[in-house]
């Protein structure tokens, strides 16, 4: 009897444990994008969900990441081209999440590249909880979220990113 009890106990722990794991955020297409709420450059808390209703590109970047910085002019082009499509339908919004840790560097880059889209950061570098939530392994990294908040693509860059946005917005 004791043996059976132990087996049951083990099974319960196993099942319970796997449930906990299942509750962990999963970053893959078809899943809901976990909420991000961080301060913008003025210190005002800004939520990812505030952009709901648009196609949202979450761009994880940092000023210390050279390929991320090089990508910003491309993002600017995409933003200029697809943001205005909003009238009557959905448009592209960008939610920039910086893994910087120095506010001056972050602010300077935003000004330099004239990033007119949302920019947030907790200025915690790789210790930022958002890097854990989104399981970020390397920068640059991005996540495309549809108007209902579901993840529809992961880590697209260059022509692939533009092609995806273009066909998605044309389809809508």
């Amino acid at each position: 009897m004791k043996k059976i009890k132990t087996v049951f106990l083990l099974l319960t722990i196993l099942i319970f444990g796997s449930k906990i794991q299942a509750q962990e955020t999963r970053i893959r297409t078809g899943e809901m994008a976990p909420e991000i709420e961080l301060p913008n450059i003025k210190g005002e808390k800004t939520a990812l969900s505030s952009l709901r209703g648009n196609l949202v590109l979450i761009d994880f970047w940092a000023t210390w990441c050279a390929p991320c910085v090089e990508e910003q002019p491309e993002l600017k082009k995409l933003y200029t081209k697809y943001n205005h499509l909003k009238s009557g339908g959905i448009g592209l919004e960008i939610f920039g999440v910086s893994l910087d840790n120095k506010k001056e560097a972050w602010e300077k880059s935003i000004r330099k590249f004239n990033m007119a889209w949302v920019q947030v950061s907790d200025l915690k570098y790789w210790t930022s909880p958002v890097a854990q939530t989104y399981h970020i392994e390397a920068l640059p990294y991005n996540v495309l979220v549809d108007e209902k908040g579901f993840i529809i693509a992961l880590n697209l860059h260059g022509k692939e990113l533009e092609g995806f946005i273009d066909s998605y917005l044309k389809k809508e």
Partner: protein
Amino acid sequence: MKKLTPYFSFIFMLVFSAAVQAQTAKEPWTESQLIATQELADQINAPGKPKPLIINIGPQAVIKGSVDVGPGKEKTNIKALEKTLAKSDKNKEVVIYCGCCPFDKCPNIRPAFNQLKDMGFTNARLLNIPKNIKTDWIDKGYPVND
């Protein structure tokens, strides 16, 4: 034709190993000057043992007890590194780390390691971080600064 295959593969291996050697030869450090994250974490955690001088030459001093001089790509920070080490014994074990990105993309480690070499530190080491400080240090539960 079959007879030729071993010769071809031999030549291929030669060329390949030469290319690998050429790649490692470019770096200012040698393989033995790299220190594994586990080894450094053990050193930090071991009570009463002499600890190396750990210096952050990346964006943020994440590792417990490390000195922050800032990204090695900036000349002012290399000067700060020089100043930090000015009075240190040249035989002291000095470990530098960045962890922003993999080695091939990191702009900070080479200028900093060269500075240690130029100053004549015989026990200079670079923390081997294959991906970044999150994946290879924080996620493993190694000691971090509060």
